[in-house]
């Protein structure tokens, strides 16, 4: 091989450079996510294991039942009746999206778009940043209707 003295160290340097993230994080495991559980409530909709594994499917079913079938009450495996609502029921106990939902979702880089529309309990910042005249002022400033 021509220029083996340059090519082989070059390849080694390249491989080392590309794998830098592996070496810098070697032996350090990212900490296991610890979502904060509500203190005053012990029982979720279903068992902890079920919720951990199936919460996304459950929420999807709820959304379908509520919006499309107008069924708003879920009967869990114990026969308890639960109002199917992420914003009003889940978040009644889990009072923080940041300390509960986001902890695991960030860890696994999942980005569900629930909160694009649903309002998390703690969030109001960045709202109503654009000042607008009240509805009445707006209506009175409107031009009078043209008469024929």
């Amino acid at each position, binding site marked *: 091989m021509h220029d083996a003295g340059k090519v082989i160290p070059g390849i080694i340097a390249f491989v080392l450079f590309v794998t830098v993230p592996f070496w810098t994080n070697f032996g350090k495991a990212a900490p296991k996510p610890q979502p904060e559980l509500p203190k005053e409530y012990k029982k979720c909709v279903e068992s902890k294991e079920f919720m951990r594994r199936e919460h996304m499917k459950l929420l999807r079913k709820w959304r379908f039942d509520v919006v499309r079938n*107008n069924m708003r009450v879920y009967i869990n495996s114990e026969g308890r009746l639960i109002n199917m609502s992420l914003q009003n029921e889940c978040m009644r106990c889990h009072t923080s999206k940041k300390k509960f939902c986001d902890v695991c979702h960030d860890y696994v880089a999942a980005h569900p778009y629930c909160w694009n529309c649903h309002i998390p309990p703690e969030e109001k910042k960045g*709202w109503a940043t654009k000042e*607008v005249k009240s509805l009445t002022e707006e*209506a009175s400033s409107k031009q009078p*209707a043209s008469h*024929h």
Partner: protein
Amino acid sequence: MVIDTRVCKKHEPCEECIKACHHVHNVPLIPNKKHEIKWIWKEEFEHAFPDTAHEYLDEYLHEREFIVLCNHCEHPPCVRVCPTQATFKREDGIVMMDMHRCIGCRFCMAACPYGSRSFNWEDPRPYIKNPNPRYPTRMKGVVEKCTFCTERLAEGKLPACVEACKHGAIMVGDLADPHSEINKVLREHFTLRRKVHLGTGPSVFYII
């Protein structure tokens, strides 16, 4: 739904129904007319009833403003055109929207002859002053409209506009039940509907 516009006329410029609806549903107040979102609003006679208006009409009608909203049509054109079935008609006749499915194609806006639908050209949250934490907002890129307060009906409450009207100008009921109060009102009063000739079968009636 029956709206007694004579009562509205007496109490102008009342807009309690609009305020209540837009508050409970987190409808943003966007000053740019091209981006505005509305579920229920006021319209002049010739805009609300263009096929009924003519130049010899009483001035009295021209001066009045009419409360307009989604007509929850019997044959809703928006439902026919929606490619994802995000808009659908429930068994009870309410034309409902599934925001999770809306892809923002705006076919429904083109199809609706009443202009009842609004598109979110931008994130509505910066324009919501006093949000209702029990109801979601919408996001940029979806269409929205009046849902006849399905979430309130499910709790046994009246729609927000009906409840907010102190003068009893708005009334809701079951049109399919011949003995319902609303059918009685419709029998006793002459009512108009918007653009009936289009065959959409609007379910909002106006006592003039």
